């Protein structure tokens, strides 16, 4: 036990003083948050360039009205219209269409909308663009056309201008959330989406930074053969336990820094991102997730001869863990669906999914307890298996053991 403490202290102290550790601990979250926020901010920010849109108007009715409507509706900061329309009408439909597509092809216009002759019956509009990923523009154009169409049909039906205005006036849709004490407050859509993601990214980072350091530390000792001296002083089990403990405490320190920073930011901003509950769960899932991955990475480190080789195996596991981040939009949108609940019980991703779910909406108590149990059992199994591999592999150099050899070690 004493030796485990000695090793843990050594691993912790030599790492925590490293300048790179301090820098990356502080910088990585900043980089991650910035890289998440910047695109979102850019997408929601005002545009500075107006777009040329070609309209082929087969109906000889809507094109002109659309031009009037859209140029007034959306304006750039400097007052110029956001959309400028090149209207093609009154000639042969096919010829106009060909001409419009040529304009698009030569990039003179950013998009081209085809309004057919029989819009009232077919209700079919076509939108052509080189970039079909500009959802914001598409939505604005679509809403305006829809609006125009409804208006025009009402005018055709001889409904009065007043009624039309009152019918087509948009509804306000305010997002509200209910706080802890039942108080209502206006919600920030962006924030309620980002909070769980920030949490899961922080968890991912803390777990993987510590596990990667563990992996590197095992490989370093294997490569410089210090492991021979170490193992003439302590048992492999003590060595592994000491390393996992020391670097786990390192990870906890990192988590502590993040939680304090989070608290400072949320107090400063007036948002209650961190609650004592979410902090507690974060710590619980960090410890479980870290122990699980640390065991796996310690075993990987004991098998491979160089960091380069091991990196390939470890990146496989890191990829598995990116899965929850990729699934995050789904889990956030529907945290209590059967899929979300089931995902929360898959050991490799349990901590991440559960933190996501907790960040959105507190799951049922049984789900939390069950997920912790699943994780605890997985941790025990992972540590037992890793211990067996580590003990045998740590001093084996040269040829890397095959999977079947490793399987034999596990069975002994």
């Amino acid at each position, binding site marked *: 036990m004493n030796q485990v403490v000695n090793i843990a202290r050594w691993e912790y102290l*030599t790492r925590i003083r490293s300048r790179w550790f301090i820098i990356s601990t502080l910088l990585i979250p900043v980089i991650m948050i910035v890289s998440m926020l910047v695109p979102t901010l850019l997408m929601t920010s005002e545009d500075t360039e107006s777009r040329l849109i070609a309209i082929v108007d087969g109906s000889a009715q809507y094109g002109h009205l659309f031009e009037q409507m859209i140029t007034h509706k959306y304006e750039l900061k400097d007052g110029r219209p956001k959309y400028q329309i090149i209207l093609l009408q009154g000639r042969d439909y096919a010829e106009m269409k060909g001409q419009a597509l040529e304009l698009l092809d030569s990039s003179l216009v950013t998009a081209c909308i085809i309004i057919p002759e029989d819009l009232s019956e077919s209700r079919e509009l076509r939108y052509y663009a080189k970039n079909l990923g500009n959802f914001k523009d598409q939505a604005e154009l679509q809403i305006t056309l829809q609006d125009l169409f409804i208006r025009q049909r009402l005018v055709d039906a001889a409904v009065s201008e007043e009624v039309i205005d009152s019918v087509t006036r948009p509804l306000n849709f305010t997002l509200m959330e209910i706080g802890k004490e039942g108080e209502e407050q206006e919600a920030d859509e962006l924030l309620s989406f980002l909070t769980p993601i920030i949490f899961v990214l922080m968890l991912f980072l803390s777990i993987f930074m510590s596990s990667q350091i563990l992996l590197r530390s095992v490989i370093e000792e294997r490569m410089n053969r210090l492991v021979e001296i170490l193992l003439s002083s*302590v048992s492999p089990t003590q060595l592994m336990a000491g390393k996992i403990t020391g670097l786990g405490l390192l990870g906890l320190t990192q988590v502590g820094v993040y939680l304090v920073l989070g608290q400072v930011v949320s107090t400063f901003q007036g948002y209650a991102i961190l609650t004592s509950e979410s902090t507690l769960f974060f710590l619980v899932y960090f410890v479980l997730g870290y122990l699980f991955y640390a065991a796996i990475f310690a075993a990987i480190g004991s098998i491979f001869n160089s960091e380069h080789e091991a990196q390939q195996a470890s990146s496989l596991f890191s990829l598995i863990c990116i899965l929850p981040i990729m699934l995050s939009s789904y889990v956030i949108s529907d945290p209590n669906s059967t899929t979300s609940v089931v995902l929360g019980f898959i050991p490799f991703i349990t901590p991440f999914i559960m933190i996501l779910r907790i960040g959105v909406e507190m799951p049922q108590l049984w789900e939390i307890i069950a997920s912790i149990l699943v994780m605890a059992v997985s941790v025990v199994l992972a540590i037992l298996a890793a211990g067996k591999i580590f003990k045998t592999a740590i001093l084996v150099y040269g040829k890397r053991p095959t999977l079947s050899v490793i399987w034999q070690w596990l069975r002994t």
Partner: protein
Amino acid sequence: MITLQNVTKTFNHTIAVDHLNLKVPKGSVFGLLGPNGAGKTTTIRMIMNIMQPDSGTILLKERPLLRSDFRNIGYLPEERGLYQKTKLRETIHYFARLKGMSAHAALLRTEGLLEQFDLLGYADRKIEELSKGNQQKVQFIIAIVHEPILVILDEPFSGLDPINQLKMKEVIHSLHEKNTTFIFSTHQMEQVEKLCSEICLINAGQSVLEGPLATIRRNYGAIVVEIEFQGDREKLAELPLRIIELSDQRLRAELNDSRQLNDILPQVIQRVTLTHFRLLEPSLEQIFIDRVKGSSKS
């Protein structure tokens, strides 16, 4: 101190150590000699419990080694490395602690050794800033920091300059005087002749020659006589000697034993004018080469 009985280790159908028997007496400086690939490092790793023998037993003071015994054993592996990013003083201190020393004792001992090895000035430097020779001294310090009763050194002098070799030998001597047992492996024979009291010569995993160095010299080494003379060298060629070298002024030849000299010298004097003669001690290197060649022939 250490006894190996019938120890065998095989790697992928190659026998590295083949039914090896060894007896390292307490307080001895024991040299494990052999050419590259003879099984020296494997033997040491088995003693250090880094590898398990396939068969045979390794005993410490007539009983199997326990994990706790390793607290009293120091080890310098053949392939060397250290943590590069940590400071000298704290690295030595860490290994002393791992060997079970109290924090205070470890600190005192670390300071003492740093001073003894002229490393105090580097104590707070990172190890990567040290020269290779100094790093090697640090590794040696780690092997002896906990005042072990047995120190195992695998090729300790390779890569060290003469001054530092001398320093290391001094320390080995002074520890030896305090009854510390040393085992070291080497293929550098001069080191062994100067340091060892006992040797074991192994080749292809088997012991070829074992015992106190003096006995081995007496029993296995051919005595060489070197004679310088003036006169006709052809007259010497007819002497009943195993001649190694015969030139215009010099004759080198092997004697069966030292008594033969009494018969030979008068005959030499009769034939030529003797200007100088001396007996050469059998060199371990010659014994080594003879035995290794002999054993690979058989």
